[in-house]
Every structure is written in structure tokens, then in C-alpha cells.
């Protein structure tokens, strides 16, 4: 800020001195304006995010929530994490935006306007959990490469749009279709023209699920730019990178899609467990599909101090990729004993579920409340960081908060 005004004053000062008079419109000319190169944009204002959100990266934008910001049952934009791989698209015109369905496995290439999508297909609304594959990366040892997400790269907003399956049925898909691949309007960080920052997708079985949407709205409004305006693919329960933003083309492939961030170590984990730090060959890496069971205590915020004899109300959300959470527990003694929380059914398939409990503490002191979810497959969250992998995906270790009783 200081530097900016210094530069401005210097430039104007030079100007004024040179002209031998003050510049009448000088102050106005630069008021509120800053040279782009020196700009320190305020992402909180730009993206309408809560001031407590954490900016991990500003080129590209990567912003995460803190657990207590995610307390709402339906996540508002203000608390939704942003994970961008490239530069935001510019000059989006919803009137001229089109979606093209093409690829080896379509019977015909077909293009739709946003109006077509809104008027020619039935609209559906689902609450869908999207978690970044790298949520929790920060905890891996040796450190895993990438943005060091803590716990806040997850959200569950309400998405409205067209079922992808309805569009694919309208287009006509060949029997050899294997994978769908999205293509988007964002641009590569390097500025290389035509280079895609990311183009991922999912197998046909996931694409044809009822809850897999091409969303035109989020929480009843136009999708915010950072979250994919004007059209986003939303595939709940899978790494959020499957849910492509700013989608303008979907290719139906006759093989597993091989676009940027589908190969190498991106969104892939060793097919067989490896020792921490071990090198893994490309051919031994498998694409992440359904995300693992996980939960988050969203109330109270960690660090709460309460009086002895008082019960503490806790609450939060739990989710399990393609599956459902069947049991939610908490522990105040580092896992020596667990007590059950009450747990709600999801609003719809692939939506997170809410849990709550009244926690009693036996005496004064320092406590940690740990939360553990178990899914329909009998899988539950580990208390330690799970299997190491080169890019630090799938950390579903129990979340915990610190409490002092005095």
C-alpha cells in the first residue's frame, strides 16, 4: 500500500513539477486505480469471501476455509474454497456461451446455448459435497508437493442444472464410450495460447448418475465466477477437480481421458500402498475416484474455554464419497473411548450429513475433541495420517479441536 501511493505520488509529482503546476485531474485520474503490475487485489472483496479464509496462493487463486466457517448446512459462497489451476476466464457472455458435446464416442457432435440447457431440459437441484483431492495435504511427511491444504478444501452447496445424462441421451452416445472429458475457458498460467490448465473427467458410470449435473446455478443464484460461471460440471463425492468449471465442451472418449492432470502424479495415488517418500512409477498410479469417509467439527471453533461442569455442544458434517455415513463418534481421550453422536440422513445422495453431540468433561484441564465417521462399507477415519502418496491426496485423518475446561 505504501509502495503504491509512493509510486503514484512520485509519478504525479514528476508530472506536476514538470508542468510547474498541479494537475487538476491528476488525483482523480489515478484515484482507485493502480497499475496492474503493482496491484494487490483483495481476494476477499473480489470473490466475496469471508475475511477469515486463508489465501494459499494468489497466482493461481487457491483459498481455503477454516473448519468453523463451514458451519452452515448448505455452504454459502463466502466459505467455499477456491482451487484454480489456471487464470480465470475473462469476458464471459452468457448470451453467446455454448456447450459442445463431441469426441470419438458421440453419434453426432451437438452444440447447446445456455438458453437451450435452461429451457429444453428438466432442471434438478442437489446438494453435493465437493472436496479437493488434496485436502489435508499439509500433514503428509515427507511433505507432498502442491498447495498445502489444511482442512478447509470442502464444501456442500446446492447446485441446480441439467442432468449430464439427459444431455448425453439427447446427443446419442456410442456403445464404446468409456470416459467423459471436460474442456474449459480458463487459460494456462504460462500464457501459452491454447494450452489447457486442466481437463479431467470421469467414467461413463459416474457421468450417467442422476446427481451428476451441468449446473447453471449455485445456491439459487448464478454461479460465482471463481466457482465456474456460467456452467459447471458437478460430480459430487469425487475429487472436486472432476467438477470442471467454465465448461464449454465435453468430449465423450472411447478410452480413459488423457488430458492435463489426468496422468502422472496428478489426482492419482499408488495402486498398491508405498512407504513414505517412495518413488512410484507412472504405470503404478491409479486415478482417484470416490473420496474417502471424512468429517469436520464446525462448532465450536477450536480453542474454546468453558467452565467446569458445563456440557459442550458440538456439531459438524460428515461425508463418504459415493457412499453414506452410518455412524459418527467423538472421543475426548485420544481414542481410548468413543461416544456416539446423533447423525442426520443426507438431504440427497452425495450431500454431507450433519452430526451433533453434547460433550461432558470429567474434570478441569486440556482436552481435544476428535471426530470419527464410519461409512456404509464399514470404513472409518484413521487417527493418524493415512497412506503416504507422492502428491498427498486422500488425507481423511480425524479432525480435532482443542478445548480447555477451567
Amino acid at each position, binding site marked *: 500500500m505504501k509502495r503504491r501511493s509512493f509510486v503514484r505520488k*512520485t509519478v504525479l509529482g*514528476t508530472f506536476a513539477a514538470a508542468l510547474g503546476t498541479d494537475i487538476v485531474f491528476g488525483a482523480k485520474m489515478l484515484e482507485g486505480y493502480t497499475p496492474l503490475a503493482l496491484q494487490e487485489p483483495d481476494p476477499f472483496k473480489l470473490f466475496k469471501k469471508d475475511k477469515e479464509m486463508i489465501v494459499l496462493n494468489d497466482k493461481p487463486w487457491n483459498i481455503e476455509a477454516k473448519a468453523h466457517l463451514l458451519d452452515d448446512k448448505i455452504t454459502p459462497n463466502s466459505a467455499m474454497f477456491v482451487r484454480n489451476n489456471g487464470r480465470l476466464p475473462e469476458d464471459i457472455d452468457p448470451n453467446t456461451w455454448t456447450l459442445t458435446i463431441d469426441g470419438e464416442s458421440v453419434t453426432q457432435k451437438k452444440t447447446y446455448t445456455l438458453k437451450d440447457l435452461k429451457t429444453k431440459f428438466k432442471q434438478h437441484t442437489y446438494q453435493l459435497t465437493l472436496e479437493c483431492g488434496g485436502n489435508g495435504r499439509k500433514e503428509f511427511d515427507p511433505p507432498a508437493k502442491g498447495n498445502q491444504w489444511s482442512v478447509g478444501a470442502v464444501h456442500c452447496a446446492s447446485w441446480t442444472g441439467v442432468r449430464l445424462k439427459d444431455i448425453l441421451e439427447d446427443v446419442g452416445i456410442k456403445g464404446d464410450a468409456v470416459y467423459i472429458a471436460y474442456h474449459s475457458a480458463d487459460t494456462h498460467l504460462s500464457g501459452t495460447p491454447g494450452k489447457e490448465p486442466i481437463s479431467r473427467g470421469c467414467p461413463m458410470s459416474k457421468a450417467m448418475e442422476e446427481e451428476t449435473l451441468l449446473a447453471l446455478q449455485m445456491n439459487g443464484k448464478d454461479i460465482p465466477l471463481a466457482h465456474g460461471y456460467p456452467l459447471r460440471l458437478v460430480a459430487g463425492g469425487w475429487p472436486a477437480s472432476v467438477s470442471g468449471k467454465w465448461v464449454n465442451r465435453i468430449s465423450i472418449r472411447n478410452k480413459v481421458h488423457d488430458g492435463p492432470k489426468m496422468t502422472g502424479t496428478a489426482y492419482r495415488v499408488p495402486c498398491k500402498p508405498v512407504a513414505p517418500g517412495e518413488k512410484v512409477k507412472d504405470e503404478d498410479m491409479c486415478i482417484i475416484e470416490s473420496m474417502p469417509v471424512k468429517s469436520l467439527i464446525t462448532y465450536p471453533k477450536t480453542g474454546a474455554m468453558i467452565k467446569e461442569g458445563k456440557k459442550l455442544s458440538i456439531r459438524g458434517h460428515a461425508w463418504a464419497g459415493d457412499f453414506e455415513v452410518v455412524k459418527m463418534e467423538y472421543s475426548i481421550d485420544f481414542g481410548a473411548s468413543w461416544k456416539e453422536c446423533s447423525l442426520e440422513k443426507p438431504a440427497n445422495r452425495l450431500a454431507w450429513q450433519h452430526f451433533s453431540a453434547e460433550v461432558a468433561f470429567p474434570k478441569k484441564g486440556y482436552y481435544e475433541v476428535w471426530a470419527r465417521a464410519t461409512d456404509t462399507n464399514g470404513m472409518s477415519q484413521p487417527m493418524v495420517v493415512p497412506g503416504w502418496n507422492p502428491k498427498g491426496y486422500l488425507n481423511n485423518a480425524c479432525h480435532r479441536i482443542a478445548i480447555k475446561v477451567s
Partner: protein
Amino acid sequence: MDQNKEFQERIKKAEQTAHRAAYVTFFAALLLLLTIYYPQLGLGETKPEVIAEVVEDEDRIENGIHLRTGLKDGEGLMTVVNNCTNCHSAKLVTQNRMTAERWNTTIKWMQETQSLWELGEDQKIIVDYLVKNYPPQKKGRRLALTNIEWYELED
């Protein structure tokens, strides 16, 4: 739709500003040059040092931190600034803790897939800087909770 329009307008405004700023800077520089080379014109009292200050300001270091990028001051700093903050933010660099071997692998990956140029002799300077200033830290199987901000919980 409104907020997206608003957002795009902001981007446009910023671009306009950049253009304006470029004009202003250009004319200011021109006038300064005139002042230096033709003092008889009496164009002003502004000293040429002012511009030098602006340039220095860009790479100012305070308390061992390169202000523009947030990188630690050290041998190889500017090589890192010039090669590693063009495409992505320095925040992506400082978030990551790797050994020399893994940094070299990462650089190779960036060259193969992300349009990073050949670094030549700079590569060793960059990797040495990173390993020295941002070494990996042991975390074990689970870290203790730290930096807890304690507060009274009201009912």
C-alpha cells in the same frame, strides 16, 4: 449475473488503469529525461534519484524478506524471483518443502508440462536456495495442535 458482470468490469477497469499508468509513466520518464538533458528548459526541480528509488522499491528487502514476493533473502534470491514467480505466485514455492532431488524432479515436470524454460546454470542456484531456505520439516504421523487462539465460549 450481476456479480459476474461487476467482476468483469473490475478486470476491465484494472486493464484500463494499466494502460493509463503506462502512459503516465512514459510521459513522466520522457519529461524527466528532458529535465536531465535540457536543464535550461527549467522543467522542474524533481531529481532523477526519484525514479531510481522507484526501481529499487520493487525489490526492497525488509527484515530478511523480499517484500514483493515474500521470499526469504539469501544467495540466489533474485534468480528464484526471476525464474519462479512469472507463471505462479511465490506462495506456491514457499508452501512446499522438498529435497534437492524432488525439486529437480519438479523443475523437470514444469519443463515437460508447464512451459518452463531451460534453466541452465541457474537451476543449481535455485535448488540450493530452496533447500537452504525452505528445508523439509519432520511431521511424523500426526502433528500436535499448535497456534490455538483461546477464547471464552459464551452460551
